[in-house]
């Protein structure tokens, strides 16, 4: 007896960039690919990933299935190479050929392509991931005109959800908050770095991890830390402040350090490899980033996972990740004195540091691991395309049942 071909959940995933540069959005894009591939092991998927910046040479061979033979059969990368129109053409071809159940745009900047989806795959649901700042203000007309055609918005924080609703008039029932999670590889290798660096800390090391571009530096609050540092050094002269992260603004930051006469107390590491970053986390005693522009703040998760108490500000999505008084201390935005006071109190009180650090690690393990991230996205997929997810999951096993009868 013949049967219909096995049903798969057909998902197309459009990203600006995955590997070519390093930053929060790229990290989340890669993490999402990994999450979908994990989901694909339970819910049969046909996953097409389109990158509009990476070339084929940027995608590590077999990613993300290196060492896991055959598991990547359902994943197809489409990269721009030298031509964005070429990848748009591939997208059009895929939309017609595979009739996706869902098309996920991982950045609003790509939304003009939704017109193509509506035309070529009218049955597909359109979803967009809004990371943070890019949707807090007005959008270009070519983007905003597509917003009414989006079926589902995903944001990592309540804060961004409220912005979407308030600034763009998106109905909240169309928005789902799916907090980010930790990269499992990163989390897995932190333990070794902690072991390696154990004992090297003096109990006086402050750490910020952030990209230092002109756009980011002010918002992320590195300057504010530098301004607060002299007051901290008055009480703890041997304290050190490490800034991990590169970018075009690195030189300007170094100049500020010199102008404040903090060269002996501040170390700018520049662009960091994963190993250096892990060692920095392992060496530090307090994580500080008084950012006012966080759509979520994966960096806080990394710090909490590494058992670092966090000092940050009550602004944007930070309070959703860092629990004031439980996993860190939050101060008012721009309040230099309060920041210095919070840092000093932590450097002074080892018991408080330990208690916040333990609570932070616990919070990450309970809510923000990769498994949690996968489960949240899996639930979201099931809500977006219930019939396709159900059919794919059921069909997988019914096909086995049919095979058991020798195809009868």
């Amino acid at each position, binding site marked *: *007896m013949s049967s219909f071909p096995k049903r798969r959940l057909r998902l197309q995933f459009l990203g600006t960039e995955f590997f070519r540069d390093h930053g929060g959005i790229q990290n989340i894009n890669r993490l999402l690919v990994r999450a979908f591939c994990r989901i694909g092991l339970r819910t049969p998927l046909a996953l097409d990933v389109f990158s509009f910046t990476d070339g084929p040479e940027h995608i590590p061979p077999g990613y993300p299935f290196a060492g896991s033979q055959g598991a990547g059969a359902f994943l197809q990368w489409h990269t721009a190479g030298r031509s964005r129109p070429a990848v748009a053409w591939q997208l059009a071809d895929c939309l017609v050929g595979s009739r996706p159940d869902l098309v996920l745009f991982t950045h609003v900047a790509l939304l003009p392509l939704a017109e193509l989806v509506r035309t070529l795959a009218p049955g597909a649901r359109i979803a967009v991931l809004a990371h943070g700042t890019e949707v807090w203000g007005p959008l270009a007309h070519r983007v905003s005109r597509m917003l009414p055609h989006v079926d589902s918005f995903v944001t990592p924080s309540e804060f961004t959800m409220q912005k979407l609703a308030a600034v763009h008039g998106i109905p909240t029932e169309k928005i789902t908050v799916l907090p980010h999670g930790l990269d499992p590889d990163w989390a897995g290798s932190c333990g070794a770095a902690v072991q390696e660096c154990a004992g090297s800390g003096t109990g006086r090391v402050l750490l910020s991890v952030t990209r230092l571009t002109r756009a980011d530096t002010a918002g992320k609050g590195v300057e504010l830390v530098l301004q607060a540092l002299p007051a901290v050094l008055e009480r703890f002269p041997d304290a050190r402040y490490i800034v991990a992260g590169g970018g075009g603004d690195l030189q300007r930051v170094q100049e500020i350090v010199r102008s404040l006469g903090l060269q002996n107390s501040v170390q700018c590491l520049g662009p960091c490899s994963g190993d250096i970053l892990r060692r920095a986390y392992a060496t530090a005693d307090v994580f500080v980033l008084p950012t006012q522009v966080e759509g979520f703040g994966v960096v806080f998760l990394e710090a909490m996972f590494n058992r670092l108490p966090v000092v940050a500000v009550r602004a944007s999505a930070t309070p959703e990740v860092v629990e004031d008084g439980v996993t860190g201390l939050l101060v008012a935005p721009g309040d230099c004195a309060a920041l210095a006071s919070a840092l000093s109190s932590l450097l002074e009180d080892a018991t408080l540091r330990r208690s916040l650090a333990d609570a932070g690690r616990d919070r990450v393990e309970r809510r923000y691991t990769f498994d949690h991230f996968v489960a949240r996205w899996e*639930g979201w997929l099931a809500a977006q395309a*219930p019939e396709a*997810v*159900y059919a794919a999951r*059921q069909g997988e*096993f019914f096909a086995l049942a049919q095979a*058991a*009868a020798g195809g009868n």
Partner: protein
Amino acid sequence: MCGICGWWEQRPPAGHARVPPQLSAMLRQMAPRGPDDEGAQEFQPQTGGVLHLGARRLAIQDLSAAGHQPMHDSASGNWLVFNGEIFNFLELRRELEAKGRRFHSQGDTEVLLASYCEWGENCLERLRGMFAFALWDAARQALLLARDRLGIKPLYYAASPGRFVFASELRALLASGLVARELDPTGLDSFLKFGAVQEPITMVRGVRLLPAGCLLRWKDSAFQVQRYWDLPAAALPLNGDPRVRADKLEALREELDRAVRMRLVSDVPLGVFLSGGLDSSLVAAIAARHCSRVKTFTVTFAEEQFAEGRKAQRVARLLGTEHHEITVSESDLIAALPAAISAMDQPTVDGINTFFVSRVTKQAGVTVALSGLGGDEQFAGYRSFRLVPRMEWAEDHLPHWARRAAGLAMQPLLRSSDRGQKMSLWLRGEGAFPHPFYHSRLLLSPTQVARMLRPERMLEIRFEEFAEDMARQQRLIARHDPVNRVSCLELLVYLRNTLLRDTDSMSMANSLEVRVPLLDHRVTEQALLLPGRWKLDDRQRKPMLVSAAGKSLPPGVLQQPKRGFEFPWNHWLRGELRGSVEAALAEPGPVLDAALHWPAVRQIWSEFLDGRRHWSRVWMFYVLREWTAQNLAA
């Protein structure tokens, strides 16, 4: 007939003789199954922990205290709790006596215990009847659970680290407090699709129904399930030779006669359910041949348009039985409906009719009743026997695209009825069931279920568990012809999970034992060994059964059209029942709220009122709502 239960826990013995409250609660829950006696026994397995066995007894054979359970065999040290009837127990007893075994009672329980002592697990092959039992093997320090071949008697179990618990009723396990009152999304999915949960899945997380024809060996905290019987794998390669056919018919006739005769043995009053249809009339006719004064019972409706009492009256008159006709009105039904729903061990779209028939039969002074259940499944009585082979043909000969195109083209036409929607679903290839039969028994399509389930519950469904049983079914039917394939699947899917389970819970709630002679396994084996083409005839329904019945049945009975024994729900749900059903469906309650998008259910109710939905699609949610409210916790 009884209710049995047991509980092993990795803990030190209590040090007093009192029955632990967990076991008492299970026994109390099963009191209607066994109003005549109660017993409990505690053991300490050498491997550790404490094991309790318990039983409630409905005395049918050997009404004396000698039939008390748990029953002990002093020579072996074995203990037994047993629910059901071994109909060939006299034959087995004689065989055992010839081997020197002495008996202290007149019933079948002691024979079962002695059979195990004599033949071990192989005794299962010799048993002819309906049974579920638990036997403590003292020598092996192992517990054996077993269930009859066709799944007439249930046996539920739950295993967790340091604990193993079993009972005849799912709700007994819940009553014990040893099992969390938690909805199993896999069970819910199964119920929504088929109107009854497909074994071994249940509505409660962590609880399993021991599959029919299987035994479970538990020892030292671990257990394994093994099948000891299955339906025949293929019909005999018979040609159309009239002599061969006549021989086979004669053999079937003898087996039917033996099956009914064996089930007439009882020390308490016995009757026959008689609807006037072919199956029940055949059972009544054979019973009347062997008993001088058979009592027959028919339930009929006060509403004239639904009454079919005259048909049964005529059969009873022709057979010369003592006939009892019990008339049920709408108000009778509404008054007793809460009791009927409370009697459901698991939610079911069917079963209410069995509850009322059982209740009125019991009230008429009968404790054992024979039913014609199984005739339609084994002798091609359903519409599915004509429809499903055609669907099979279409799957074999039409390409996917052609079926899909036909489904899409006909969708507007088919959308207006449930049956049409199922056909459209099948044509479009949704559902992906490994055999078209499953479409024929669907209440809600997978698409409808997917839309209705909350995503987090949907992701918890263990399709592999259902598919595992389905794979077994597919292997089993692979070598059968199209008609017998349907027969096997009707037995394994609908009869086992809906009809037999409902019959057990609804009759036992009324302390009535129902015996199903057409489901004697020898009859089943014979029926499935006959070629499917012998079972269909354009002029006669169930021709094999008619031929096997010979002259036992008056000609008028044979010509009567197929009429399900069905209450006029469509009428009632729009009448007196409307208020209570509408109120129940207004909100889901905490358990279902966490599992289903309830507006979809209210939509089904509206569609029913508009005449676009069969009553069963509404009734299933009413039952589900009531059952979860009574038995589960959020």
